[in-house]
Each structure stands twice: as structure tokens, then as C-alpha cells.
């Protein structure tokens, strides 16, 4: 594999998540619940990127994601790219896509929404994938990208 940066060591078999905006790294770790994973994880952040200025990369040994699982990170890393690695070679490339519904990741920006006062899992319909506008299933208010907060 031609890894231009090699700032983070290569893996033999697993998944590399590249092109994560540097300030979204910890959101991605938390959305994918990587803190609960017991396989080898290496990550680098504040790496040079032509696109973002600074990017982050995560390498997961022996870990593969289902599409609906990995698409959850599209909220915070819409341009993330996945490289599926086998025997130190990229065998498949994937991009993430925003799902139609988002459950339990984002916080509703409406302070009077019931989900901010009671113990309720948030649920949104993605009404605009380009601008990342989320309509709350409960209070029906729209949370937009600048006001997006990850739980």
C-alpha cells in the first residue's frame, strides 16, 4: 500500500478511516464506540491535508463495519473515506453517506424539546443531505449543521 503520510503505522487486515476533519476525530471515536473495542486501534490527528488543512486518520486492526454502522459518522465527517485492508493492501474503497434517519447520535438544538429534558433517545429525519438539516422526530424543529452537537 502506498501510504503517503505513514504518520500512523500500517495495518495488516482491517479498516482505515481517512479524511476525517481533525476536530471531529473524537466525535467519530465516540459515534463508532471505538472506546469499547478491544482490538488494536491507532490514530493520528492534526495531520496535513490539502482538503481540510488538518485531518485525522483511524486504523483498526481486524475491524470491519456494516454500511449503516459506518454511515453514522457522515454527520461529522461527511468526506471520510474507508479503505478496507487485507494483507497490507487496499482491497476495497468506500465513501460514507448520510442516512435518511439518524438515531441517538445528535442532540436536538431546541432547548424546549422533550429529548433534552427526559431520558429519550433522539431521532431525526435528514431533510437536507447537502446542508445536513435534521428534523427532530419529537419536537419537529430543525437542527442545522452549525448547531449540530454530538451526544
Amino acid at each position, binding site marked *: 500500500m502506498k501510504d503517503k503520510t505513514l504518520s500512523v503505522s500500517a495495518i495488516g487486515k482491517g479498516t482505515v478511516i481517512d479524511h476525517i476533519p481533525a476536530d471531529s476525530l473524537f466525535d467519530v471515536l465516540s459515534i463508532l464506540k471505538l472506546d469499547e473495542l478491544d482490538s488494536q486501534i491507532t490514530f493520528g490527528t492534526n495531520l496535513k491535508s490539502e482538503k481540510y488543512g488538518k485531518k485525522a486518520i483511524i486504523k483498526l486492526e481486524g475491524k470491519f463495519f456494516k454500511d449503516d454502522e459506518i454511515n453514522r459518522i457522515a454527520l461529522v465527517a461527511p468526506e471520510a473515506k474507508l479503505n478496507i485492508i487485507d494483507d497490507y493492501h487496499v482491497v476495497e474503497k468506500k465513501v460514507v453517506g448520510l442516512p435518511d434517519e439518524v438515531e441517538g447520535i445528535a442532540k436536538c438544538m*431546541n432547548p*424546549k*424539546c*422533550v*429529548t433534552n*429534558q*427526559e*431520558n*429519550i433517545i433522539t431521532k431525526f429525519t435528514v431533510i437536507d443531505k447537502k446542508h445536513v438539516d435534521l428534523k*427532530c*422526530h*419529537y*419536537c*419537529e*424543529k*430543525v437542527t442545522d449543521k452549525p448547531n449540530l452537537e454530538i451526544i
Partner: protein
Amino acid sequence: MKNKSLISITDYSKAEYLRLIEIAEEFEQNPKQQLLEGVVIASLFFEPSTRTRLSFESAINRLGGKIVGFTDAASSSVKKGESLKDTILTVSNYSDLIVMRHPLEGSSRFASEIAPVPVVNAGDGANQHPTQCMLDLYSIKKTQNTLDNLNVALVGDLKYGRTVHSLMMAMSNFNTTFNFISPNELRMPDTYKNYLDNQNIRYYEHDNLEEAIPHADIIYMTRVQRERFSDPIEYEKVKNSYVLRNAMLDQTKDNMRILHPLPRVSEIHEDVDSNPKAYYFQQALNGVYMRQAIISSILGLK
């Protein structure tokens, strides 16, 4: 509609609106039908709303049903810190249907998802108040003999007013022409205007009340509240421009009727009250028939 909770006006279809209006007409002809004998309805008012609560209680009593519940959160276990979920699950054991008013937005939707009995939203914060919208539709049908092809003027706070948003969504099923009359700061939000554009529905925006009302079949008045303005001087400048006065009604159509969700403050001058075009008090009475219709159809009795 059996067992189908009513949380948001868009939960019901055009056919369901029309069916409920028919049932409300039947109740208006014959309001005392003992359909709810042996039925217990929970009336949970987590915040006080005397007008809405009395209208529901009147509807339930006229149908011979019994009511359990509370009239504000201070007299319930909510005060002891009970979660909404626990309150709803407990009360579901005691009742066949829950009528609920709550200050938090989305609370009724949540309740309807966890309760084994149907829930009727009697207002969830600034979000939805679908029974108000249904009684508005009934009032329009009753005064105009149709819901189709009408010219509806919505006046006042079009930015935050939940009743005007719901009414606009519901009436958009009936080829309505809308006139939106509001101060600049309180105009109809783009989301709703985009919706109308996509449905090819005509609407016009005005900042002058008098120029917009001569063609109206319905004038729907709402209150312009001082606290909605970031600049108090702006409020002072516009506050008298959206007051409906009797002298303005000469130029309006004979069939035109004035609606208002109440309580009114000063946006309709009292000199309008005796004009036959004033309909807001009868509108409130229609709420009882419509709530009889909603409750009995959800319980499968109509």
C-alpha cells in the same frame, strides 16, 4: 382512525379531516350521546390551560365518559421528580385514552410511542395543537359550506404562531389561496413558503391589513406579542397596524367570517364583536363538537 393517536395535524389525511368534520356535524345536531359509558379518559395537564381543558371535559361529559387526571403539574407526582415515561405508563393503566397538555415540545409524540392507549395532544409547548386546528377547519367548513378554493387571510404573528402553521398545512389540501399579513419581523418562515411553492399553492405577503382583506373568505387573527420583538421600538411602530376594527369590515365580502384561537387581547377591537362577521366565540363552541368527534372516533365508537 381507531386507536390512532392525534399528535400533529399532519398525522391525519384529508379524508380523515373530512370524516371528523362529518362526525362533528352529527354531534352538533345531537350533542348528548352516551357513547362513553364506562369509559375513563385521563386528562393530564402538565401546565394549566383552562380553556382547552374545559372544552375537552365538556366534550367527555356530554358523551357520558368519566375523567381522571390533574390540572397542573404542581398537583401531580411530576413535582416529586417522576419521569414523563413513568407517569404515562402508570396513567395508561387507569384509562382508555389520554388527553395531554405539556410545556415540552415533542412530549405528546413520546407519550404516544410508549403508551398502550391512544394519546390526543392538547398542546405540546409551541409545537402542535391539532384539536385546535381541527376545530378551525370545522368552523371554516360550517361558515363557508365548503373547504375548497377559499381565500384565507392569516394575520399577526406568522413566525411563531403554531395555530397558523397547522391551519396552513391542513388547508393546503383544499386549493386555498393564502394571504399572509404580518409585521416584517414576524413573517411566515421560509420552510412553510417553500412547502406551498412545492405544492403549487398561491400565497401573497402583505404588511398592510386593509389591502389584503377585501377578497378574504376567512380572516384568521392572531396576537402580535411584544416579547417577540428584539427592538421594542419596532413593536411600538407596528402594534396598531394589525388591529382589526369594525370600520374596516365594510369593504369585506358578505360571507367573510373572522376567526381567532382566543384568548384575544387587543388585536380585534371590541367594536367588531357585534358584527355578524365575528365568529370567534361560536368557533370556541365548535371545539366541543370537534373534540367529541375526535375522542369517539379514536375509541372506535363512531
